[in-house]
């Protein structure tokens, strides 16, 4: 039983940045802009968070800087895709490469520690939140895995609820979905399509910013070259897996994080009937599942209708 809770605990830790990035992608893609740049936004945010948290000795300053960096990359993606009607796929790939190249160059120039930033002190990180009440409950009930996380984990839970409310119940959410499904109809109804898309990009950047900052401020304690290691793409896969719906995307993230957590537990151990499974097979599960889903073997994943098509106002 104990091992079950430690897997659950690890799942929550791994899932948090994925959830934030997947919800970031949800805003962008629901507004009709393909978001391959999740990876780049997260990486830029991780770098900015590491630099500022180190200089100011404050995790909150780091978080703010991470969000600002995420928004900057997102707006760049916005200017290219919305302002210049450029190819959104290519823009995403380009931004990911640019950030992956720029961050270690700057890290080397500013800190002279190879492509990384100095390790943060405890004071500059988010540590686990200790609640006396929670400890009392956790001692009696098998809920240990739900307590003792850092504040960003709990923040992510709030974000999930807020996002699903915003997307489905708010005026902005209605406009967001309209713009992503049929921008010309939305335009005729008096909605400023480009503005809504820019706003969606900014939200996407801010959420990716939190996700990237989490990697540094709550996990590694320093920026390491290419530290996102495909998490942005994994989040995108979870978003598609969740058919562009908030709660389903979150479930996708939890599922992917669970495979990651279980992989560490299973390393080298023998399973009944199957024998030992190579790590690589478990690592590949999220990607294989996404392909299977996209192939339509597990229900249909239908993307927002106007996704990837630049909006040119009809006259």
């Amino acid at each position, binding site marked *: 039983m104990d091992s079950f809770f430690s897997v659950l605990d690890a799942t929550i830790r791994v899932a948090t940045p994925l959830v934030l990035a997947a919800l970031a992608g949800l805003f962008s893609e629901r507004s009709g802009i393909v978001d391959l740049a999740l990876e780049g936004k997260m990486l830029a945010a991780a770098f900015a968070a590491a630099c500022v948290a180190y200089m100011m000795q404050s995790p909150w300053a780091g978080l703010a800087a991470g969000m600002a960096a995420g928004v900057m990359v997102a707006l760049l993606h916005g200017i290219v895709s919305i302002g210049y009607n450029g190819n959104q*796929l290519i823009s995403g*790939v*380009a931004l990911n490469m640019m950030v992956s190249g720029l961050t270690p*160059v700057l890290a080397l120039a500013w800190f002279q520690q190879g492509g990384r930033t100095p390790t943060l002190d405890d004071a500059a990180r988010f540590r686990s939140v200790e609640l006396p009440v929670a400890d009392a409950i956790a001692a009696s009930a098998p809920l240990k895995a739900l307590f003792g996380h850092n504040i960003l984990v709990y923040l992510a839970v709030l974000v999930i609820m807020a996002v699903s409310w915003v997307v489905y119940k708010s005026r902005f959410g209605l406009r967001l979905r309209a713009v992503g499904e049929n921008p010309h109809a939305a335009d005729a109804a008096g909605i400023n399509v480009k503005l809504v898309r820019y706003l969606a990009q900014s939200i996407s950047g801010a959420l990716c910013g939190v996700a990237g900052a989490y990697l540094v401020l709550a996990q590694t304690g320093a920026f390491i070259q290419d530290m996102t290691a495909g998490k942005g793409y994994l989040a995108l896969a979870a978003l598609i897996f969740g058919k562009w719906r908030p709660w389903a995307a979150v479930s996708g993230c939890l599922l992917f994080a669970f495979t990651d957590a279980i992989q560490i537990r299973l390393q080298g151990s023998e399973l009944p009937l199957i024998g030992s499974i190579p790590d690589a097979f478990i*690592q590949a599960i999220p990607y294989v599942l996404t392909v299977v889903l996209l192939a339509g073997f597990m229900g249909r994943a239908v993307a927002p209708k106007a996704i990837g098509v630049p909006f040119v106002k009809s006259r």
Partner: protein
Amino acid sequence: MSQPSNLPRWATLWLMPVLNLFAALLVSGLVITLIGEDPVECLQLMINGAFGYPEGIGYTLFYTTSFIFTGLAVAAAFHAGLFNIGGEGQMYLAGLGVTLVCLGLDFLPGWVVIPLALLASMALGAAWAFIPGYLQAKRGSHIVVTTIMFNFIASALMTWLLVDKLIMPGSQTPATRLFAESAWIPMLHELAANLGIELPQTPLNATFFLALLALVLFYLMVWRSRWGYALRTVGLNEKAARYAGMPVSKVIIVAMCFSGALAGLAAVNELLGSTHRMNLAFTNGIGFVGIAVALMGRNHPFGILLSALLFGALTQGGLDLSFEKPAITHEMIILTQGLIILFCGALENLFQTPLALAFKQMTKR
């Protein structure tokens, strides 16, 4: 894919890519200034490193060879209206084909092993592209997402194979044993030595000529064949192609296989031409550079030759530069590649409006 413009043809084909490239290099220069180095001096060092001495030229052309293949791979898919980001994974699997042939059969003479390895590389590259192509054509799964997923699956698969199965017995590093010398593709300096010409020792090998041949064949297949006509029609207007009775699904699937096979040949240049064994990181982003090469070269073989040469020079010159200036690492080159993709691919029409205005002014006078 570009919008109709009122610019003269030469301006669209030559002036705009050059301006876009210039803009990308300008931003790189700004970053170099920001970290306290002199961009002009760096540019000189790079050009000198890439073209200034025979050894540099050899390395430049070696990198160019791989980039021609991955660039053509991306272009082949682009002509069918598909964005194949999976070049990296296809090249990885192609490397497996080369490796399996070499590990199993390299007791045979070179004229048997090398053609078999070439075929195996193209077959596995094509097979890895076939699945996303099939899913796109028959089930409507978005090719960009599936090829990204296939890159990750390829990487997991190859890590497992190299660490658990193909590793040289008794070795700690995940790499195969060295292939027998009969399977090595002759180096250019060896070929030249046979003719009595002395060239410096570089990994540039006979695959370079195969790449040049591929450029010509690509042109003939895409612009001078019935299949190429169908390919370009599907890319420009799928509905029209279907209305004209073209087998759209088949064209898409074959285009992806063609693309994967081309990406696969880059593995031949790396494995049989240079390293002579397979290791974990042999693809080294070459598949992604192909995207930049195709965009910069406007999907035309001649453009791809020039832009592959540019990226070959960037890679080799950048390596030389990083020896001279430790602050400017290989990552600076990745940044520059990203900027070139951004300006030449996503912002290709950035200068269109100002240029159109300028031309209008000039013709008025």
